[in-house]
């Protein structure tokens, strides 16, 4: 029997994924709290451990790992950009160890080392974002925001915005397919032509959005939605009431919070997380 799937922001997730046993607010806070780790920690060993931990979470949560493959080009581009930025524009200090000389450009070990530190740090941060997008649905974000007492109108707008991305992608593909049907191969065009063609996409996309705004507004008004600024008025939060915070949620939140506080305190009061402790800095 095929597994029942739920649609997430980046794909599909089995209904029995353990991630669904967590309250959407916990999952939303996961993004906010765990994203802070690579911001604070530069030590590459810890960021590699973080990346491995994230890959394990992908596995445990039954996320199809092919989703990461979609970001292959983003990782490759980032690698080249960082490598080029830090070799050609990395600066030079007489103490640096020059590895290769390419004309006036000196490729130094110190610059490459720093590029590696930054790249590993970013991989961890990007994996956190991919995990979040792969495991959250629009509904989860709205419920998470509502649980955090964000005014309904803001939470609702966030959900509507996420939905409108899907609608815009459908519109975008419809226009693109129409162009293809007229034998236009965008990939084969030079960049300047691509730019011109993009103009043909963006005008109908915006025009459709304006037309849709009428439909959405009419539908909202017809269902008795009153825009009262940030006040929610007499509105019942039925959907939110269907979710309950469990001990697991409190445990996960406490764990993430304690870990965050721990690395903040350690990085402020000790030099345990200093880059000098990295193997890279002992080479």
């Amino acid at each position, binding site marked *: 029997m095929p597994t029942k799937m*739920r649609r997430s922001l980046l794909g599909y997730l089995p209904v029995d994924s353990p991630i669904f046993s967590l309250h959407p607010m916990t999952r939303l806070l996961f993004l906010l709290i765990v994203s802070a780790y690579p911001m604070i920690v530069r030590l590459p060993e810890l960021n590699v451990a973080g990346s491995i931990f994230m890959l394990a979470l992908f596995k445990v949560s039954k996320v199809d790992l092919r989703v990461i493959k979609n970001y292959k080009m983003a990782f490759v581009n980032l690698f080249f950009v960082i490598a080029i930025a830090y070799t050609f524009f990395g600066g030079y200090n007489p103490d640096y160890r020059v590895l290769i000389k390419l004309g006036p450009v000196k490729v130094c070990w110190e610059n490459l080392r720093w590029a590696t530190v930054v790249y590993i740090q970013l991989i961890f941060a990007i994996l956190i974002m991919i995990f979040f997008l792969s495991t959250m649905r629009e509904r989860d974000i709205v419920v998470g925001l509502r649980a955090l007492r964000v005014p309904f109108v803001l939470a609702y707008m966030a959900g509507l915005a996420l939905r409108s991305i899907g609608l815009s992608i459908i519109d975008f593909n419809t226009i693109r397919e129409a162009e293809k049907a007229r034998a236009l191969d965008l990939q084969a065009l030079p960049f300047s032509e691509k730019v011109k063609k993009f103009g043909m996409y963006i005008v109908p996309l915006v025009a459709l959005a304006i037309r849709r705004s009428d439909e959405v507004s*009419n*539908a909202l*008004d*017809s*269902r008795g*939605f009153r825009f009262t600024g940030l006040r929610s008025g007499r509105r*019942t939060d*039925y959907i939110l*009431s269907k979710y309950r915070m469990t001990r697991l949620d409190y445990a996960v939140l406490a764990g993430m919070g304690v870990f965050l506080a721990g690395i903040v305190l350690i990085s402020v009061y000790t030099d345990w997380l200093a880059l000098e402790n990295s193997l890279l800095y002992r080479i």
Partner: protein
Amino acid sequence: MAEPVIRVEGLKWKYEGSRDWVLRGVDLEIHQGEFVGIVGPNDSGKTTLAMSLNGLVPNNYPGVMEGRVVVDGMDTREHSVAEIAESVGFVFPDPESQFLSMTVEEEVVFALENRGFPREEIEERMWWALELTNIPEDYLEKPPYELSGGEKQRVAIASVLAMRPKIIVLDEPTSMLDPIGKTEVIEVLTEMKRRYNATVIVIEHRLEDIAPLADKMVLVYRGTIPKVAPPREFFQDVDFLLEHDVFPPDVMVLVNELRRRGLYDGPVPMTVDEAEGVVREILGRR
């Protein structure tokens, strides 16, 4: 006779920037519990008339209005669409354009949450609406956009029904659906007529499906209402309807032709079964 629940008096409407009136002096009365079918050719003003019944016209569209529309005691010029929505539910032609939420469950309870009903009542109304529209429980977590056309429109109707409004306006609810979807929606309308004593106003091109359900048929033509009558009376003069670009069901056209040729002089049948009876009667006589 009881006070009408909808009273349209001398309604004229012109959209901003347009030279022509879309509605040119419409008068209409609809009573509580009536099932009304509105028919007419394209661009005759049917949708504008429908939108004026829940206040979208004039509240959400700039334009010039003359006359007045009073719905459940509310003058549409003096009440917001959200206020009128407490009495009038509106189903749009395109089911996707009216979805406001990411799951069927959220969609159906959205209006109920807006009105601040207690949680238990929301749940009770939701199940009632889902049952009436034949939406299975395992659809609750699904995004409405991923359903079939007929299912989408049924979800849209359920979302409106859950409010239990006094009046439900359905603007061409089957126009964007495939034949299966159209049949599903007509079945829901039949069920609504049987079990839910609301005033239902349906703008519909499929006359063969609406005629048997309707208590009253309204013809809209070039911004006016040239004919309002019970269905049997409404379809008696088939030539009048054809002159006004309304194409009655084939059975009616057939029997009308038989009448023209002097083969039959009874009333125009409303259903295929009735038409079969007429044909058998003619064949039996010969």
